[in-house]
């Protein structure tokens, strides 16, 4: 394997008496799509800002493109594309003006940027909005423009912090499609998310983070295989009865999680389990058999759901 583009060892960031990131390790290889999955406050964004060479660390080592981002900030940032959690486009300027000015910050020649803008407008599906002021764009369009802006310098690594948070389902799917294209083109992606479906769709490999620490690492499928069963049966008996029947149900499956509104039963065969429940004369008001997801992995690892 060639040398990783990003190498993080024992990374720790402390704010006052709060440890936001607590001794994490990971590598990201060239062309890989790597994810940091975890709930709000897990330390994902703090980690991202350190990777983006804009924030300092308390201890540990970080190497990006063979350089310490804290010592060589501008040199490292020259080859990164950053897509922050909050859009920080200039709303008073047009779509193309935003891209142009950003390109100039990389000292790129005007001719290069102009040609690049045409390519990016097409990629971001914003050709018709080229001369529109950014403040008039929808949330999804702003996100796509922010990603396009991050690509203006042809970065080696694109860092995306919660790329689809706050978008409606349709806008999210358009965005995923765009990111998937980048992945196919071999762009190295590092993204944070608290959406397990996003992580499953976009990441080749991910780490599950909680309270500043890494709980597990692997491919989405590998993690599911390792930490969950093949299928999950979700049953609801109504909020009061859920607790009553829980002890009896837990005997029937490999593992069970009791959530406030429903019970999650982990099994290799959901339908068969549902039949067993019916045979025991327990009649759930609703039931659903589904495949295990990263949400189940997270629940297993932390005892909590991703979005609380």
């Amino acid at each position, binding site marked *: 394997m060639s040398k990783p583009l990003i190498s993080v060892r024992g990374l720790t960031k402390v704010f006052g008496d709060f440890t936001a990131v607590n001794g994490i390790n990971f590598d990201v290889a060239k062309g890989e799509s790597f994810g940091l999955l975890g709930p709000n406050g897990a330390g994902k964004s703090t980690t991202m800002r350190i990777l*983006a060479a*804009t*924030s*300092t660390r308390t201890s540990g080592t970080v190497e990006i493109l063979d350089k310490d981002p804290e010592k060589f*900030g*501008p*040199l490292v*940032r*020259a*080859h*990164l594309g*950053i897509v*922050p959690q*909050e859009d*920080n*486009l*200039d*709303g*008073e*300027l047009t779509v193309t*003006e935003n891209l142009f*000015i*950003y390109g*100039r*910050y*990389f*000292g*790129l*020649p005007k001719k*290069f940027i102009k040609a690049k803008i045409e390519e990016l407008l097409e990629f971001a599906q914003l050709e018709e909005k080229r001369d529109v002021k950014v403040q008039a764009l929808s949330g999804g369009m702003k996100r796509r423009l922010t990603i396009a*802006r991050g690509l203006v*310098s*042809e*970065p*080696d690594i694109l860092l995306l912090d919660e790329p689809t948070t706050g978008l409606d389902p349709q806008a999210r799917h358009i965005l995923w499609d765009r990111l998937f294209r980048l992945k196919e083109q071999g762009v190295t992606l590092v993204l944070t998310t608290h959406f397990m479906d996003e992580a499953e769709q976009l990441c080749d490999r991910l780490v599950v983070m909680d309270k500043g620490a890494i709980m597990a690492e692997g491919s989405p499928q590998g993690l599911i295989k390792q930490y969950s069963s093949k299928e999950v049966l979700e049953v609801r008996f109504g909020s009061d009865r859920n607790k009553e029947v829980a002890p009896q149900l837990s005997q029937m499956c490999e593992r069970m999680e009791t959530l406030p509104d429903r019970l999650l039963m982990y099994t290799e065969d959901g339908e068969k389990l549902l039949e067993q429940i019916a045979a025991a004369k327990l009649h759930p008001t609703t039931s659903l058999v589904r495949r295990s997801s990263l949400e189940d992995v997270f629940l297993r690892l932390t005892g909590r759901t991703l979005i609380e």
Partner: protein
Amino acid sequence: MNTGIDVPQIQRYGALYIASARLKSMSKWKAIIAAVDIGNPLFYLIAVGVGIGVLVEKGSGTSGTNGIKYIAFIAPALLANSAIAGVMDETVFPTIEGFKWRKLFFAQNATPITGRQIALGVYLSALCRAIFSVSVYYLLLIAFNVVEFGSSILLIPIAVLGGGAFGAIILYAAAKIEKDDQFFNILGRLVIMPMFLFSGTFFPLSSMPIYLQPIGWISPLWHATELGREAAFDYGISNLMVAVHLTFLSTLVAIGITLSMRQFERRLAK
């Protein structure tokens, strides 16, 4: 790897990239900026020239102003004040906006541009605004026959230096504050207004009681006004005092910029 990115060049010219982006943003407001920078002097020149000035000269002639027409006496102060107002507009708002409202600085800092360059770029673009405001004002002073064209042209760089001295400190303050709720009120009413009134603007500083004079001594407006009067009308200030004024203003610029650059860098790296 994009080999077209020349980091040493960005390290040299980054502040200019930021300044040119700021000028681009300002150009979106050019109609308003022009209206303010032309309208404001007009109002003062009319009100003071035909109103207050006549009244003052009727009362005491020009004895209190070293023999200078009243409107001409206050012109260098108005000019420096216009530079201060221009620099303030283009440092305070963009800085609070950049850190807080729209977080534009964080976008700029995600490129090879550093926090220090952002601070310097904002400052340089504010100086450009001051040069514009003051030049317009100066042309109106000539048009209204308040000053004669000649050595009075020095009023422009002097006013800009005054605005720049105040602006450098205010840039630091704007970068330092986290809660902006009361900042504008305090700045406008408790800093700008007293500075405008007590900096020898409308009457020589020496005609104020001694215990009020220190307001003038620490005020960039007073130092710029005194220099301006000397340049425009040979006001009779000693060379030593000229040096004191210049040193005071330059020192404020140096201190303000040093502090601002450090503060921008720190706040962005949090």
